[in-house]
């Protein structure tokens, strides 16, 4: 497949989509001149449209890219995110939707402050909205960069600026009316084309030799018998292939906790025959896969002319001429694995990064042609391998039940990293894993680990469950519909569409894995790459939708954040006297500022894990906002001061715990995971289990201590 052709089509499809969206924004923007129109779409969006828009808002880069990618490398554990994210909507529907609609005007702050008129609440809630929105914005912007880099070949920063600029334009043009319609379009397209992709996956069926609809030849990783020779693990001379290899180096990968040897990796020298093409390229053939060495054309020409039997080093590549044949000497890495009766070496992929920026892939210089192969795949399907294992088209349940079998064996992508001298080496290898392990929890979340690891998992699931109903960009959508009943119905449409999409994520993620389309260095692009494996057009459409996914979510977040600044802070907290027109103008200015901040943070946080940041936003939202919402609705003794204290404690405890979490220690202090767990004051990655109850407790205590003030609500809204 020609990358430029793919990119052109993707750009064309994307440009058409964006042009349509912008046209719609202009059209609708002319109709939204009031504050209510800008922030809440005039409260007149039909509930069905609003429900799909909820899906558009909610199915962000984390859902489409992150969850599919996680399922592609961690199986069922990725699907746990789908379950947790959807379950959160139950809180939204049954507890929050209608009362919030009754309470609010434009923003979440209005709702909280509706019975107190407290400047403290106005400030704390607006600040909380801003903080959660910005934290949620960062991964979306990082996601934008992740998408454009492989798709269009543009640098990360360009992607971030592109998304930021378009979104600021959309929001500043028309506010909530246009973002609602953008989300409606995006939500619909995302679900429809994900379904198309899932149908293609099922029709394609399962195979141990997938070839991406004939576009990419299946590569079978080689295996050598090995034997111990003193300290070294060498190819067993009894294996006929052994003569082609020479042992160069060996490394034991230790378990950082126990110090035991986890695995042994071996570096072998291999001679690869070079051929010269009519176009003037030199190329290497590795088991049927052609790797071009275009950059070395001149050197090799000269080399071919003057080399005899001697070995020459050019550009650090060693060339050997034997007779008329020219060979290149490469070093490849192999992973040792013990079987029942012998030890074998299994070929791995390698990426060597040098201090001066040089990159080597599988023993040869990285180039457009010599890239890491996509990974994943199945070793066995229901006990069979090779052509007889191919299932042909399968139904959706047969797809899952076949993959759940003990005798269906996945090649789960794994990575191990180490340094040799000044070079950083990453090895990508496959771990054979039975379907009974892949299709149940346990590969990522240590549900069979220590008590603390189990609590950490429970803490994450709690934050996902409670975070949804407290996300400001979700909460403001309750004000875009005309009545509490419409709020309820749009939430049900959202649950149906989001739930359906999350069912599809299982197939998209597993489809990427079994079709060997997972990028070994980043799993975020699994769903778009799955589409590329079947059709260029489908890839272009899916990529454009993925891009629009980021656009849509960022739009919603910027509307929420600009509403917090213009309405809650400028209009209410600082009591700036503004007419409707000025309020809309202030909102647009705020959208521009927040968008600019998001662009900067999106560039600064390049390379940071998207799911990690999204989890952060959920935890902060659940800790800061949810206790205030729930208690306001259901506890008559709630006071304004209690709400302010609860929001403050929620933000500080959640953000604080994340900042001192083992993940942050490991990431920023460059220590191993085990050392980080030892160093971190609280060995928890997910703060929800501590910060959410703390925030509830604070609200109760402060409310009880401030009962004599006049700000106590007369009765809870829920009991009206």
């Amino acid at each position: 497949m020609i990358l430029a052709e793919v990119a052109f089509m993707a750009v064309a499809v994307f440009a058409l989509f964006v042009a349509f969206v912008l046209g719609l924004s202009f059209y609708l923007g002319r109709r939204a001149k009031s504050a209510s129109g800008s922030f809440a779409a005039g409260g007149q969006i039909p509930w069905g449209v609003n429900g799909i828009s909820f899906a558009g808002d909610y199915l962000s880069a984390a859902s489409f890219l992150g969850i599919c990618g996680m399922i592609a490398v961690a199986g069922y554990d990725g699907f746990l995110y789908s379950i947790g994210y959807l379950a959160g909507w139950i809180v939204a529907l049954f507890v929050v939707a209608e009362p919030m609609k009754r309470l609010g005007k434009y923003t979440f702050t209005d709702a909280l402050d509706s019975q107190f008129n407290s400047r403290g609440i106005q400030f704390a809630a607006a600040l909380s909205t801003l903080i959660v929105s910005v934290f949620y914005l960062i991964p979306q912007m990082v996601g934008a960069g992740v998408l454009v880099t492989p798709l269009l070949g543009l640098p990360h920063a360009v992607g971030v600026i592109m998304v930021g600029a378009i979104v600021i334009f959309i929001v500043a043009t028309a506010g909530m009316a246009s973002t609602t319609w953008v989300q409606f379009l995006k939500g619909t397209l995302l679900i429809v084309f994900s379904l198309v992709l899932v149908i293609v996956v099922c029709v394609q069926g399962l195979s141990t030799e997938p070839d991406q609809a004939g576009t990419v030849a299946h590569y079978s990783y080689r295996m050598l018998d090995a034997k111990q020779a003193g300290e070294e693990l060498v190819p067993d001379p009894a294996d006929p292939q052994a003569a082609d290899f020479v042992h160069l180096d060996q490394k034991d990968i230790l378990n950082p906790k126990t110090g035991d040897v986890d695995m042994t990796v071996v570096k072998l020298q291999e001679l690869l025959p070079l051929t010269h093409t009519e176009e003037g390229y030199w190329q290497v053939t590795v088991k049927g896969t052609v790797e071009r060495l275009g950059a070395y054309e001149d050197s090799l020409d000269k080399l071919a002319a003057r080399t005899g039997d001697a070995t020459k080093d050019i550009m650090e590549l060693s060339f050997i001429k034997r007779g008329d044949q020219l060979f290149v000497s490469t070093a490849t890495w192999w992973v040792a694995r013990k079987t029942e009766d012998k030890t074998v070496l299994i070929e791995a992929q390698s990426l060597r990064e040098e201090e001066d920026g040089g990159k080597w892939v599988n023993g040869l210089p990285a180039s457009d042609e010599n890239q890491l192969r996509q990974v994943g795949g199945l070793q066995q399907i229901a006990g069979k391998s090779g052509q007889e294992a191919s299932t042909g088209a399968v139904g959706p349940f047969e797809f899952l039940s076949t993959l759940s079998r003990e005798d269906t064996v996945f090649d789960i992508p794994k990575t191990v990293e180490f340094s040799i001298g000044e070079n950083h080496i990453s090895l990508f290898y496959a771990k054979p894993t039975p379907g009974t392990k892949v299709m149940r929890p346990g590969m990522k979340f240590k549900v069979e680990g220590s008590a603390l690891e189990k609590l950490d998992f429970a803490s994450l699931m709690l934050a996902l469950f409670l975070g949804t109903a407290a996300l400001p960009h979700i909460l403001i959508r309750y004000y875009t519909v005309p009545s509490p009943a419409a709020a309820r119905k749009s939430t049900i449409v959202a649950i149906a569409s989001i739930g359906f999409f999350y069912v599809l994520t299982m197939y998209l993620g597993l489809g990427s894995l079994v079709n060997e389309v997972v990028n070994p260095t980043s799993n975020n692009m699994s769903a778009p790459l799955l589409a590329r494996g079947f059709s260029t057009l489908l890839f272009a459409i899916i990529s454009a939708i993925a891009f629009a996914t980021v656009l849509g979510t960022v739009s919603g977040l910027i509307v929420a954040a600009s509403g917090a600044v213009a309405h809650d802070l400028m209009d209410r907290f600082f009591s700036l006297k503004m007419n409707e027109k000025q309020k809309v103008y202030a909102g647009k200015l705020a959208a521009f500022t927040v968008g600019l901040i998001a662009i900067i943070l999106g560039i600064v946080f390049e390379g940071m894990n998207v799911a990690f940041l999204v989890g952060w936003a959920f935890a902060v939202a659940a800790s800061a906002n949810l206790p205030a919402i729930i208690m306001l609705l259901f506890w008559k003794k709630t006071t304004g001061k209690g709400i302010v204290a609860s929001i403050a404690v929620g933000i500080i405890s959640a953000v604080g715990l994340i900042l001192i979490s083992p993940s942050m220690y490991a990431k920023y202090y460059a220590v191993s995971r085990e050392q980080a767990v030892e160093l971190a004051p609280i060995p928890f990655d997910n703060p929800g289990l501590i910060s959410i109850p703390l925030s509830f407790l604070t609200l109760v205590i402060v409310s009880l201590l401030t009962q004599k003030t006049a700000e106590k609500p007369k009765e809870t809204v829920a009991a009206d």
Partner: protein
Amino acid sequence: MLHEPAAPQGKDYGQKYKTRLGVWMFLLYGIVYGGFMAINLAQPKLMAERTPVFGLNVAGVYGFGLIVFALLLALVYNVMCTRRERQLRQADEQGQGGEE
């Protein structure tokens, strides 16, 4: 600053009923969700056991079941709320007191 809703709203019937129903349904779902988490934490291997349901394992049936159950509960909730709203509205219109 007034605190009226963003759009004019008609009378919202059956608030108390809807709230009570919502809380009970939330608790019901919470128990089923909690059960899923509890099995994952206490008996993770049980999740790999095959079931008669389309040949899926427990993890598949329970996981998809949670999604389908959420939608079913949501639909039941909507039907019950809509019916109560209609009853109270009709009673209100007939002057029999539709407030709750």
